[in-house]
């Protein structure tokens, strides 16, 4: 059995998973309209306060030696190492890093003291390996917006194969002019706080975050959440590189594979829910086709924006916390049905007895992924 165990979330809503859960459970959102260093107009984004990063990192190391993403990653990984007590130098431990753009701000010449070579993801990963003295070079996954949840699925597969006992899955991406200008060129950005699945949704907010989850076969380490990763799958729409399948084919394929023998008693679905018109519509169709009409659905993008390579890890960590508290989290920004599939949105925070949830994601390149998590007894 493979467990999802200790977690950390660093976001505008806090530097630990508990802080983040507390904020979200009190309906606080990290998305704000603000001026960014490179923009003339305000943007609606979820940005981590620089002063907070400096304050946390000053207790750890010299900030001039690490990029912003490296500092956040070090803080996040260190928190999970501290909680779990696992040793990075152990040959049975692997770091699996999920990101879309890594240190992309190096291309923007934001650093004078950093080796520009660390814009290469393997150099970035090597930097983290040296910092923590990981025995193995980290494995880096860059698979668009499904990277985070796919990394968790891959971690499970590596452990099942017998290669490792512990895989630290860390997902991270920062806000950059690079990604903001790109999504803006697609007309995919909302100028107001995003409204996933709502009839009046107008697009995404971008966010930054780093989140880490320990995936392990050690039952004792797994006892924090007592949660098993039951199954996971990815699939491609084979339809379009920048738009999802209208019929949700790839996501539907993922759901049918992970649900094979487990269709009963799903507590909720943590959807991708980016708040673009096409994505949310596609997801509603895929969930409907997979027979999930009565299963409550939320998107956490209303709290965090779209955190790209961090999203799948962060949203899984928060969903684990939600299951621990036996409380469903409201899909922030949702008011009026804005999709054609028959699904049930979570419209307020509510207590519920449940023992499983599904996390899904879809992204550019036609990729989709989904995983099923289940609480175990004892």
């Amino acid at each position, binding site marked *: 059995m493979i467990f999802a165990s200790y977690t950390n979330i660093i976001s505008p809503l806090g530097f630990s998973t508990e802080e983040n859960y507390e904020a979200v459970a009190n309906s606080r959102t990290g998305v704000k309209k603000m001026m960014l260093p490179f923009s003339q107009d305000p943007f609606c984004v979820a940005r981590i306060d620089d002063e907070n990063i400096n304050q946390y990192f000053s207790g750890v190391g010299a900030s001039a030696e690490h990029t912003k993403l490296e500092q956040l990653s070090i803080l996040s990984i260190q928190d999970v190492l501290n909680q779990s007590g696992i040793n990075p130098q152990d040959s049975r431990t692997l770091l699996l890093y999920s990101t879309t753009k890594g240190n992309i701000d190096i291309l923007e010449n934001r650093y004078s003291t950093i080796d520009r070579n660390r814009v*290469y993801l393997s150099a970035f990963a090597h930097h983290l390996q040296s910092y923590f003295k990981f025995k193995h070079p980290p494995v880096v996954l860059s698979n668009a917006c499904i990277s985070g949840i*796919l990394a968790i699925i891959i971690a499970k597969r590596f452990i099942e194969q017998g290669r490792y006992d512990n895989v630290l899955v860390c997902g991270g991406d920062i806000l950059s002019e690079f990604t903001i200008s790109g999504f803006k060129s697609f007309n995919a950005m909302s100028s107001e706080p995003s409204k996933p699945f709502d009839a009046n949704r107008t697009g995404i907010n971008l966010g930054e975050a780093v989140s880490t989850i320990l995936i392990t076969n050690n039952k004792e380490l797994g006892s924090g959440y007592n949660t098993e990763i039951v199954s996971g799958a*990815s699939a491609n729409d084979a339809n379009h*590189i920048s738009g999802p399948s209208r019929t949700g084919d790839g996501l539907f394929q993922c759901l049918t594979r992970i649900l094979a023998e487990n269709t009963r008693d799903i507590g909720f679905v943590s959807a991708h829910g980016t708040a673009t018109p096409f994505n949310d519509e596609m997801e509603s169709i895929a969930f409907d086709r997979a027979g999930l009409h009565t299963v409550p659905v939320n998107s956490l993008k209303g709290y965090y924006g779209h955190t790209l390579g961090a999203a799948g890890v962060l949203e899984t960590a928060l969903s684990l916390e939600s299951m621990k508290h036996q409380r469903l989290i409201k899909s922030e920004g949702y008011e009026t049905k804005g999709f054609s599939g028959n699904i049930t949105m979570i419209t307020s925070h509510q207590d519920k007895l449940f023992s499983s949830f599904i996390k899904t994601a879809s992204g*550019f390149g036609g990729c989709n992924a989904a995983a099923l998590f289940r609480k175990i007894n004892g």
Partner: protein
Amino acid sequence: MNAIISYAHIKHNQVSVNGEVVFRSDSALSLPEFLSDAYKTLGLSYPKFHKMDAQCKLGFLCAEFALKGTEFLTKVDLSRTAIVLSNAASSLETDRVHQHSIDDKSNYFPSPAVFVYTLPNITIGELAIKYKITGENAFFISEQLDAELLVNYTETLLQSGTEAAIVGWVEVDGTQWEAFIFLVQNTENINKNSIFKPLNQSTVITQYNQTIWTH
């Protein structure tokens, strides 16, 4: 048995299939010129090719050469076929183009047609679309071809519902570029007279180093 049934390698303005150079362009040609030549020699008519960035074109051509003359696409369940690719530079070549388009505020022209290629797994998406392959996806970043990672991960897939895979390395980084793609299939589904090697790390390394490039 899981076997590598065919492989292609593109480097130094040459294409090799199963270890033998099958196409060679003038070594002075630039990458775009070489890609255009290689596309022509395959006699393809695929308009989407011309919209791709260089990395996707390179990956696409390498897959075409590996698949040519095989029955791979007709023998496998495309919904249970995985695409697992890797490289060192992610999408850095196109990242630089997008960055250039936003560097100068008086000459600001970010384009969605460029931005969409600033993710390495778009190459996987392009192959999936061309061949209607809907199985597992993964794009790994490693400093150099990591045969151990690719073989191990492909094996985890083959043990859990995947029955075939397109696996390899596709990289464009300035003047450094290379693609190496191999096709993995269960030998139960292939002609007994075909030549194949078992899927393992040493097979991949041998095949990767097999081609004798002429310059």
